[in-house]
């Protein structure tokens, strides 16, 4: 009987080309995504007179710098960002990569498009020069972010040297209550294990709550693995995964599908497999969550109050809390529901999929937003589906701006969509770092439903307490 292995170990072993004398493994990379900031990697590649080893395995999709108001010249914030987008397109054409260009309805945020197109598949190794590549693990892939030098290495060799990470399993037990979303679950996990709790580990999310999640929800969970320090997060493929993938353009077809499904069924973690670390969380204890500080680990249920630094005994911790409080413009002990919000952003690779938009629409229906809010779909196809379902009409009736062009937008704030200095934003994105959404921006991470509720009331409001419309 073979040694019991985890999902992660099975994928790792299957892609191991060789191991060197220092114990690092040379891994074969199945899929690689590039965006505008991959320009460093192309420059390194071309500067060394190297070529792309497997162009068919790389997908180029502009998403970081593309405007969301439209894709005409006048929509770009400046000529430099437009040139950067064009540069990716030129590099894709020069190297004959798969390209989802500006006039392609499939274009959108890489971590939304990969799963949507069926490019992301169980058992594959996927990399991209973006830390939220962990998203793709939701379909049972091993997916992680890399820097520019490694992107160049993958382009040239289709491989990467990696030390074997440690493994960690997070089991979410019990039942989540109504109004608690996948975003609240992952925020609670990060609050529980900390922003470095997963460092050096690949996380597998397991347990009944995770199994009951749809693929969209699983993508939200795996997306934020990096905010717990883990480079990768993954969920075992199952019937939900196969139903999602079947018929998608890049998924296997016909006989290939049957063979693929047979193989995928061998991937889930063996019962006796051991993990370096195990954590358990009871979903019943999770409420709608709001981050209050400048690290995703600074998260609390919406019903609680901002911490009071003066109650801290450790002076270093006290200083850190005061600093966060200063930056965020918060008062110690202030109830979270008393925090006034200036602006709302619904979008990003964490929460811009159709289910997220439906969640937002169900709160916004027959209500009016009191504060400026924008909603940016994750891909052109999601935009089309949302409009077919009439969600855009609900958003418009609520006075919320429905942006026509997909992209990363206000999550990273480099395409012209950003949060002003000292402005407070309820955001469905993934990072509340200082300056993340713009210099001096005050970001609070929440679910799409909670963001929509904040748009309506102008405060952080427990969405479960809003009357059904």
């Amino acid at each position, binding site marked *: 009987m073979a040694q019991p292995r985890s999902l992660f170990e099975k994928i790792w072993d299957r892609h191991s080309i060789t191991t060197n004398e220092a114990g690092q493994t040379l891994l074969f990379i199945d899929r690689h995504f590039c965006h505008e900031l991959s320009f460093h990697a192309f420059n390194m590649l071309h500067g060394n007179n190297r070529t792309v080893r497997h162009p068919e395995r790389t997908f180029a999709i502009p998403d970081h710098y593309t405007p969301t108001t439209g894709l005409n010249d006048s929509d770009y914030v400046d000529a430099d960002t437009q040139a950067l987008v064009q540069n990716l397109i030129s590099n894709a054409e020069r190297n004959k990569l798969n390209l989802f260009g500006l006039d392609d309805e499939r274009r959108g945020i890489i971590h939304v498009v990969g799963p949507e197109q069926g490019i992301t598949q169980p058992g594959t190794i996927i990399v991209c020069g973006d830390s939220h590549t962990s998203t793709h693990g939701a379909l049972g892939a091993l997916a992680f972010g890399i820097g520019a030098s*490694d992107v160049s290495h993958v382009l040239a060799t*289709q491989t990467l040297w990696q030390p074997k990470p440690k493994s960690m399993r997070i089991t979410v037990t019990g039942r989540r209550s109504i109004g608690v979303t996948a975003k609240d679950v992952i925020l609670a996990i990060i609050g529980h294990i900390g922003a470095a709790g997963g460092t050096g580990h690949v996380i597998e999310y397991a347990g009944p709550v995770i199994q009951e999640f749809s693929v969209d929800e699983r993508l939200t969970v795996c997306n934020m693995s990096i905010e717990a320090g883990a480079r990768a997060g993954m969920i075992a493929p199952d019937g939900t995964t196969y139903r999602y993938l079947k018929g998608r353009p890049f998924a296997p077809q016909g006989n290939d599908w049957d*063979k693929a499904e047979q193989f995928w069924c061998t991937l889930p973690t063996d019962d006796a497999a051991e993990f370096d670390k195990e954590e358990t969380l009871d979903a019943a204890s999770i409420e709608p969550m709001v981050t209050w500080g400048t690290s995703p680990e600074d998260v609390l249920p919406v019903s609680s109050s901002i911490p009071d630094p003066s109650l801290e005994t450790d002076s270093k911790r006290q200083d850190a809390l005061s600093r966060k409080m200063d930056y965020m413009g918060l008062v110690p002990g202030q109830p979270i529901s008393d925090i006034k919000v200036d602006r709302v952003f619904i979008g990003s690779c964490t929460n811009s999929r159709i289910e997220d938009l439906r969640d937002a629409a169900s709160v916004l229906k027959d209500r009016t937003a009191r504060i400026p809010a924008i909603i940016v779909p994750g891909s052109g196809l999601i935009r089309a589906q949302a409009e077919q379902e009439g969600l855009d009409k609900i958003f418009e009736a609520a006075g919320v701006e429905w942006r026509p062009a997909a992209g990363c937008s206000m999550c990273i704030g480099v395409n012209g969509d950003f949060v002003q200095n000292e402005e407070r934003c309820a955001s469905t994105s993934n990072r509340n770092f200082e300056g993340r959404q713009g210099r001096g921006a005050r970001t609070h991470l929440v679910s799409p439903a909670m963001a929509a509720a904040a748009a309506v009331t102008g405060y952080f409001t427990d969405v479960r307490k809003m009357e059904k419309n």
Partner: protein
Amino acid sequence: MEPFTCFTSVAVPMDQDNIDTDQILPARHLMMPRDERYGGYVFKDLRLDQDGNEIGSFILNKEGFRPSRIIVASHNFGCGSSREGAVFTLVDAGFRAIIATRFGDIFYNNSFNNGLLPVVLPEETVALLRQQLHDGPGAEVTVDLEAQTVTAPDQSVYPFEIDAHRRNRLLKGLDAVGYTLQYEDDITTFEGRYIDVAPWELSAAQQ
């Protein structure tokens, strides 16, 4: 890439946990080509106010710490995004080694591709180093990669662990792709075998 063997410099203590890549290099500066000098942008929003004036309370703006080329940080330095610009900016600003209790994984990897040495030491040791640096601004720290030791201002010596592959690459300043191409035969053999096992993987990607 500049090889790293042994390096001594004034070191700066940074007490804050979770100094993320957005603080090291704000996202709005990510589009600069590599040939521009990234050094002027290091810790930009911590170091300079909106008018470009130095923020006096930031430690690298304080006398004694300005010549620092080693950072003694705290917990989870370089967490966040995969941007290699965060490493470019530190390297261009002259930094050669960062000491912390833990690093963001991607930042850690990126450092080795640019001749920057991230050193992991236990919390007590890192706290002790920071204290000595606070007590005597301008004090020096030595990071010796060959011996795998850090020498504190009080001359105490602390050993550190590092994986042999990364150590060798830094010691020699090796180009990663050049090294991997020595394994060309292994890669080709693997590819032949791999496609046989899983024919759908290539055909799907080629559509």
